[in-house]
């Protein structure tokens, strides 16, 4: 039981990271990035290739994060910048188009095979009483906690973080205050892609790396984002964890088929009862 809860938290926290990227982009630019999962997939494949060249793990990780930053920036400049303020149908469809393209790109470059991906954490278990845990279980949780604290501090303490928050809150006011709004948009995409790359590095060792491996996770991440509130950064993480734990427990105690359906059912329930999510305050719609 405890073990399942902890592995649920670990998995949920990783999904929360994916959701965090989606929320960050949506909050800052109002765009629902359907291609987020595929961006995770691409960065993880880049990491795999870097490791394939014989680079040490941590160097490969750093290079991957650099690649992710450039990748996020170029997607923003080439595709997204023209679309800010465009109707949802257009922006969502551009992201869906990107989703299709990235899927094909991955198949061209890396093929359709599933790949093993190394984990930085050993899976040698140690036990507390009846519960046996391994660094592989706890590692992702620690990384997610550190990353959350890091992001929190970034948004609260640094000048750039505060400027980004201002942009998110009110674009016009931010612009009038001399904040380079466009640069903030680009930064939010860079940040989201880097977080996505970290999530990918954590997920890939758990399940095999494959060009479709993010599709079910994307579903999970959207559910987490809706659960926490699509405009709440901390909500995305917490939503992910709640979803991870519930799904794992349902998988054991009820049925494994229901486990697959769980994210969807929870999401639908939340959408019916409290569409703005658990942790998000959103004003009533103005006409």
């Amino acid at each position, binding site marked *: 039981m405890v073990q399942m809860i902890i592995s649920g938290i670990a998995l949920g926290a990783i999904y929360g990271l994916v959701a965090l990227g989606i929320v960050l982009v949506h909050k800052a630019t109002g765009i629902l990035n359907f291609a987020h999962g595929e961006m995770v997939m691409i960065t993880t494949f880049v990491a795999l290739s870097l490791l394939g060249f014989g680079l040490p793990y941590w160097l490969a990780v750093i290079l991957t994060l650099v690649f992710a930053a450039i990748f996020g920036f170029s997607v923003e400049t080439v595709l997204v910048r023209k679309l800010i303020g465009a109707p949802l149908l257009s922006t969502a469809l551009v992201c*869906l188009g990107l989703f299709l393209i990235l899927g094909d790109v991955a198949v061209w470059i890396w093929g359709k095979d599933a790949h093993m991906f190394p984990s930085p954490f050993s899976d040698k278990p140690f036990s507390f009483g009846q519960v046996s845990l391994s660094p592989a279980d706890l590692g992702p949780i620690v990384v997610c906690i550190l990353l959350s604290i890091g992001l929190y501090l970034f948004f609260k303490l640094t000048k750039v973080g505060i400027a980004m928050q201002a942009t998110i809150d009110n674009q016009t006011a931010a612009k009038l205050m001399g904040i380079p709004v466009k640069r903030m948009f680009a930064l939010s995409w860079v940040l989201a892609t880097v977080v996505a790359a970290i999530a990918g590095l954590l997920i890939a060792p758990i399940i095999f790396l494959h060009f479709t491996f993010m599709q079910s996770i994307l579903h999970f991440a959207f559910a987490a984002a809706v659960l926490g509130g699509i405009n709440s950064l901390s909500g995305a993480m917490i939503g992910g964890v709640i979803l991870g734990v519930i799904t794992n427990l349902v998988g054991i105690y009820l049925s494994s088929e229901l486990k697959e359906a769980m994210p969807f059912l929870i999401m639908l329930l939340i959408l019916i009862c409290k569409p703005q999510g658990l942790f998000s305050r959103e004003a009533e719609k103005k006409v």
Partner: protein
Amino acid sequence: MPQIKKNFIYLIATIIILAMPFYLGEYFLYIATLTLVFTLASFGTNILSGYTNLLSLAGATFFGAGAFATAILMSRYEVSFFPALLLAGFTGVALSLVVAIPTLRLEHVYLAIATLGYVFISSEIAKSLESLTGGSMGMGVPQVSIMGQSLDEIGLFYITLVIVTLLMIAGVNLTHCRFGRAFFAVKGSEFAARSIGIPAPKIKIIAFAVQAFYCAVAGGIYGVLVRFIDPSLFSIFVSISFLSMVIIGGLGSVLGSIFGAIFVIVTPQLLTYFGLTEIQRSIYGLAMILSLMFLPNGLVSLTEKFKFFKQVEH
């Protein structure tokens, strides 16, 4: 004079389409029938997303449900093709209520996410109902036979042509009547529509039901055309392909639905024909992005340069 010209164009188009079995080879005739099938799905999606401006990704759910309903009715219960197709259409409508009613209050982003969820869940359901759907292995679909005579490709082409034409005419009439204007009103502003007495929730449900019916019928025909279906029909790619037809062709335009279907079906099939299977998806992903950026009103806006097309449209 314009009337004669318009009729002339109609006549030429009709002859070209009716004569297709005589000059197209078997493979290209198959593509033509496939294009007709997707025109139907594209038009249904256009009603929902183009006319009413609801971004739904649930198209694949209806399409797959229609395909499976037709196949199951025909093979397990020995219902003949037309009643099975009609029942499949109504299965789609029933499903659309399941999708639409819980999501009625949702706007924009939330609707897109929730309907995406339906696609995932329907594929899981199709996989788990092994006794009916054959699970992830899929199932074969029996050949269509009318009055004891089994139909060949040419027969199927004409049957599809008749069904699609009838449904398209019905759909065009629908968009010109009270409902059609209500769709546009809801697209413009839901609040404004409500304030002049248009029951927005009802209109949204109707738009969903129309999309579901068209997609389910398209799915049913797709099944008997391809002769094999599996749960991969319930794929987000199918939903995206419907939306991309609408976008590439032109939002809120009938001619646009047709152009979109032609582009989305014919391009990948031609690429396959030339041995470039790998880049199918990215081709229409790219086409979608490019048309959104440079041709926001779709391929149909190109035709406005030619006067006669404009006359056909109206």
